[in-house]
């Protein structure tokens, strides 16, 4: 029996997932390393934010963690126990995860009532009468319990997303993984959902993994932030430190690319941009995978892959030069 006391709630060890992909019109398949050696951990009652551009592997990571995909390599441990242990033990552990998707309408059966959809995780467990729990849950996420008898299309986008949050929480999961769960909502509703998630966490003690391309939204909810690039973690830090002092050039670029609702600030914005697109994860660049877009890249970065190292008090960064005080990591005009 592993020692529960020292093990974090969730421990992900060197997780890898590869896909065989075949381009159209071609017979040869290639290896796409969607998630390539990710390790992270999450404590009970906390939130972990995962941020990165499309194609960085964050959605694959979400599916791996909740057990919708099987890893090619690596382990996912909940309370120190592998979720892919064969048989009922593994299955029970995987049930401790729930997921909230980007498109709430698409994740609910349009022919069933909202109540039936919300009750799903309970009925799957064999709980016979879930209607009371459904009502309680709907109220908790700020919906009128009468909504249970409606069909998903009779709800607005924000209400649908509240209902899918209710569904995720109803069976008392240890961890809820949010994959871009607020991305398709209007701004005023995004803030409502973020606040709701904060409140629910306080009340229920659920842990979140919050995956998003929106750095501000990730920081708004997370205790700890992980930045991914081409299937790898390039930076991990508690969110306060990260907000004050991101270290990896990619994190800096993401932050500088986030537009602020402040015309004065925006006018003063230099062209601190990242060149080009995310390279294909099929043939990722050699050495540091970010070197093709990095304004600081040197020869070393082309040849040697930087390890994820501790830059002080648990602030992890995978960069040869990050934290080097002789070369301040401010990106200059010449970047573009």
């Amino acid at each position: 029996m592993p020692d529960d006391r020292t093990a974090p709630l969730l421990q992900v060890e060197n997780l890898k997932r590869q896909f065989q992909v075949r381009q159209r019109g071609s017979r040869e398949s290639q290896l796409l390393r969607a998630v390539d050696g990710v390790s992270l951990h999450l404590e009970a009652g906390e939130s972990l934010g995962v941020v990165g551009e499309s194609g960085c592997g964050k959605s694959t990571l979400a599916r791996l963690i909740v057990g919708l995909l099987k890893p090619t390599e690596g382990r996912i441990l909940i309370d120190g126990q592998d979720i892919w242990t064969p048989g009922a033990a593994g299955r029970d552990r995987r049930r401790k995860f729930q997921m909230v998707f980007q498109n709430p309408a698409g994740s609910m059966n349009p022919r069933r009532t909202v109540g039936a959809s919300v009750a799903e995780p309970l009925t799957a467990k064999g709980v016979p009468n879930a209607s009371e729990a459904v009502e309680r849950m709907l109220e908790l996420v700020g919906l009128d319990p009468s909504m249970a008898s409606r069909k998903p299309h009779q709800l607005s986008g924000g209400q649908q997303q509240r209902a899918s949050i209710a569904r995720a929480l109803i069976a008392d999961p240890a961890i809820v993984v949010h994959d871009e769960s607020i991305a398709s909502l209007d701004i005023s509703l995004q803030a409502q959902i973020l606040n709701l998630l904060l409140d629910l966490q306080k009340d229920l003690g659920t842990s979140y993994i919050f995956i998003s391309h929106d750095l501000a939204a990730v920081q708004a909810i997370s205790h700890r932030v992980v930045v991914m690039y081409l299937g790898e973690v390039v930076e991990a830090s508690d969110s306060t430190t990260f907000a004050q002092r991101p270290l990896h050039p990619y994190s800096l670029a993401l932050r500088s690319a986030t537009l602020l609702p402040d015309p004065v600030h925006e006018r003063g914005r230099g062209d601190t941009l990242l060149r080009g697109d995310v390279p294909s994860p099929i043939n990722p660049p050699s050495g540091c995978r970010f070197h093709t877009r990095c304004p600081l890249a040197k020869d070393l970065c082309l040849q040697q892959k930087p390890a994820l190292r501790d830059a002080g008090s648990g602030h992890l960064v995978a960069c040869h030069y990050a934290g080097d005080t002789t070369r301040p990591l401010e990106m200059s005009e010449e970047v573009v």
Partner: protein
Amino acid sequence: MLRMIGMRLLGMILVLLAVSALVFALGALIPGDLTSVIVGQEGATEEQFAEVRRKLGLDKPLFLQYFYWLLNVLQGDFGTSPITGRTVTADLLQQIPVSLELALLTLVVSTLIGLPAGVVAAVHANKRLDVLIRMSLLFTFSVPIFVIGILLLLVGSRWAPDLFRVSYTRWVDDPVMHIRSMAMPLLTIAFPITAMTMQMTRSSVLEVLHNPYIVTARAVGVREKRIQYLHALRNALPPIVTFIGFQLGILLGGLIVIEQIFSLPGLGRGMLEAINTRDYPMVTATTLVFAAAFVFINALVDMLYPLLDPRQRGR
């Protein structure tokens, strides 16, 4: 691309081999064989039977018979018909052009009418014109080919007897008479095929017209007609082409009926006659030709796909 065509060809050959084996086996399994046809049903002695069988090679094991048959077929020799006494190949060479002409004409006519009509119906979706077109469609759908054929024959021979009282004439013999002899069969079979092409075009174009890139084309000022017949139709083509290929299969079956009604000396009629007279070499030969046509059409459609959709061509 070349590699893909190669793979396709190999696949075609394998399918045709399988079909030939099946056709041959069916012929062999049907009670009664060529011997009885040649020798006659009654009054022949066992010795006579055995003699004929040996001559025809029917005493050998089935797979050997198949092997020899196949060897001959590959050299273009389908054997000799015991009924007509002519070589099957000679008959086929007479029949194939007739059916092929009818099939190709049907394809051309139905596409030339069906495609634009389908675009018009899609553009006017659910308006009066579209409803009218679709009503007439429904009508042609619900009436079988042979009914249309017989109706045309009955009504037509009354009103325009000149157009109908013609027996099949070859183009080389008299072009005008040839056209007159082909007009009615073509009209009969092109009717439902055109209707189907149009229906398919309508739904495919209708779907494409909802795409954002159509709005983009409008926003840069491309003329509406050009958007409909070029920008939209081009994207609607892949499913339509697949469907037309599929229709050709139905068309092959239709030929048997049409050629019978209008007394055209084509492959379908030849096949039917052969079945009636138990002309086994002819039955197997015509079946094989039909199967080959079907396989060929399917392969052609598959190979057209990358041409029609750049996304299938890879990077």
